[in-house]
């Protein structure tokens, strides 16, 4: 199977869907770049180059560079979705959601319900999240628990190139609003990605390792931390199951509980801030539904309750890592 990067997989998903359905358009700041300038058009292709090359395929009618105006971008995309287009809106950094959150929270998420089941809002919001690249507090957050909290939107968080393409194609085809989270440190990660279009269903977590001793639950970039930790633990004779959530809303509760009941020991690795994050949410779910199977307290590995620090020395301490998983695992195995 051809090998592609996370970035290429996302680009391919967008290009293939735009080819397949003329209603799909891409809107955002510098998604091509160069608008209104004398220099190169498609100058950026998104700040990390993810959408480069789409302008020449689809033109400025469907690849729309906007001013820096998040409320109008998200609102316009939402209104377009309501009236027959299938837009992909880019929120450049998830940290900027504060600027436009009303359009997501009170408008997009609620149309279908508020309007009595008559509205269809097939909007996909792509956004970059995550730390570890020294981008400091306003450009390194995760924030996906906030979206997960809101009824009416779906939250998708792929852990690698294969998942990214299949989940993004599904996000675009899905008729509900979807937030698609891309970890900014993963763009060059490579893996097998078919050339053809394919769809990965929502609400299906993926088991990337299987073992009876302990369950490691990850999402997005923390999945590879869990995989690495699992491989290291195996050398010490500890067999870990790793569960990649893939989508936070809908959540694959069945797989979570199935594995929790099998191993009785669970560690959830969540890069978002610790209060009210996904780890706490899943922890409560397991305690509620599978309490009698627990052999140890459920452990949550998240950064501390601070903004993301700038200094590399501090940020490296801030971010969850394999060692934290391994030492936690050893604690709950004894």
């Amino acid at each position, binding site marked *: 199977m051809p090998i592609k990067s996370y970035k290429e997989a996302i680009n391919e998903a967008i290009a293939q869907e735009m080819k397949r359905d003329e209603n799909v358009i891409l809107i955002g700041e510098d998604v091509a770049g160069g608008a209104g300038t004398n220099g190169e058009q498609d100058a950026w292709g998104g700040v990390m180059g993810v959408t480069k090359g789409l302008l020449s395929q689809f033109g400025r009618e469907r690849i729309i560079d906007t001013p820096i105006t998040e409320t109008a971008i998200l609102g316009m995309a939402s*209104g377009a979705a309501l009236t027959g287009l299938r837009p992909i809106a880019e929120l450049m950094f998830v940290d900027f959601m504060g600027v436009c959150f009303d359009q997501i929270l009170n*408008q997009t998420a609620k149309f279908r319900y508020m309007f009595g089941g008559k509205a269809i809002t097939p909007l996909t919001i792509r956004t970059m999240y995550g730390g570890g690249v020294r981008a400091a507090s306003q450009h390194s957050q995760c924030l996906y628990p906030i979206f997960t909290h809101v009824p009416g939107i779906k939250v998708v968080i792929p852990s690698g190139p294969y998942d990214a393409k299949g989940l993004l194609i599904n996000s675009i085809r899905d008729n509900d609003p979807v937030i698609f989270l891309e970890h900014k440190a993963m763009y060059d990660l490579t893996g097998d990605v078919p050339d053809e279009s394919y769809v990965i269903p929502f609400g299906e977590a993926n088991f990337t390792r299987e073992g009876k001793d302990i369950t490691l639950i990850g999402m997005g970039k923390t999945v590879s931390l869990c995989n690495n930790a699992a491989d290291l633990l195996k050398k010490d004779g500890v067999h870990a199951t790793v569960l990649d959530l893939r989508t936070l809303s809908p959540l694959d509760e069945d797989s979570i509980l199935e594995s929790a009941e099998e191993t009785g020991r669970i560690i959830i690795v969540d890069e978002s801030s610790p209060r009210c994050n996904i780890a706490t949410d899943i922890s409560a779910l397991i305690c509620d539904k599978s309490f009698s199977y627990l052999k140890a307290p459920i452990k949550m590995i998240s950064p501390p309750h601070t903004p993301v620090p700038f200094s590399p020395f501090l940020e490296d301490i801030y971010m969850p890592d394999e060692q934290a998983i391994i030492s936690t695992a050893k604690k709950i195995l004894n």
Partner: protein
Amino acid sequence: MQLNREDLIKAYKGMSLIREFDEAVHEEFATGSLPGFVHLYVGEEASAMGVCMNLDDIDTIASNHRGHGHCIAKGCDTTTMMKELYGKKDGICGGKGGSMHIADLSKGMLGANGIVGGGTPLICGAALTYKTKKMPNVSVGFFGDGASNQGSIAESMNMASVLNLPAVFVCEDNGFAESTGSSYGVAGSLVERGNAFGLRTAKVDGTDFFAVYETAKEIIDGSRNGEGPALIHVKTNRVYGHFEGDAITYRTDEETEDIKMNKDPLKIFKAKVTEAGLLEASQLEEIDKESNKKIKQAIIESKEADFPKEADLLTDVYISY
């Protein structure tokens, strides 16, 4: 006046229905039978009708919390609207939206909106759809003088201008942003704000249906013909408070009387058409009676109608999950 008889009757029917609807809501609310909040449009009817008579079912509008008038002007059914206010199952939104979220996409009504300034970016979206699909349609966003200071309005105007969208922004300036006068809160000139973004603009007396209609016609036709976005500043008045329950102590009784006596769009319309011999007073009275009957019937039906079932609580959060 370029309107024929049929259109004049249509115009008055619309305004009359809006008046009857919100007056009835005013009365019903006072009895305690209506749940939640309502924001009444009495006194502003000419604005909604004057603009919406230039739109068809494919054109879209987005409205605000004071949305009953826009809904009715755009063709929403008043009986199911009333049921919605009562939270009944066969309300226009299944009882799940309420007064501030009334919508009917089949009539191009993208919803009343509980967030001040929340609907305006949406009409840029509809306008983008029309532009992308090369449709000759227009999207109109109604918002108030209070909303005019929201960042979303400025962003929407700029975006519409940058992308040359067929979007028309209608600011219904009724002089008050909740309890704060617009002379205090709105800095500079609303029309200048539109000009600043390169929009075609107009200012119009919102008590005069004909003035609104003709101004809107010119503006909307321009947008249909590729001239891009525009802003209409409609000066109008609301008879009642910001919301029902508002004691309106921030406005003097004289001002309120003046609005009712001298600035009533229905009275002004009646005077104009009867003086010009276009319609008979009796015809207009007949229309009023009809509207009154219709709304009274709507209230009876609404009170009798069923609430949604418990299972309806969980439906339509998503299309599929």
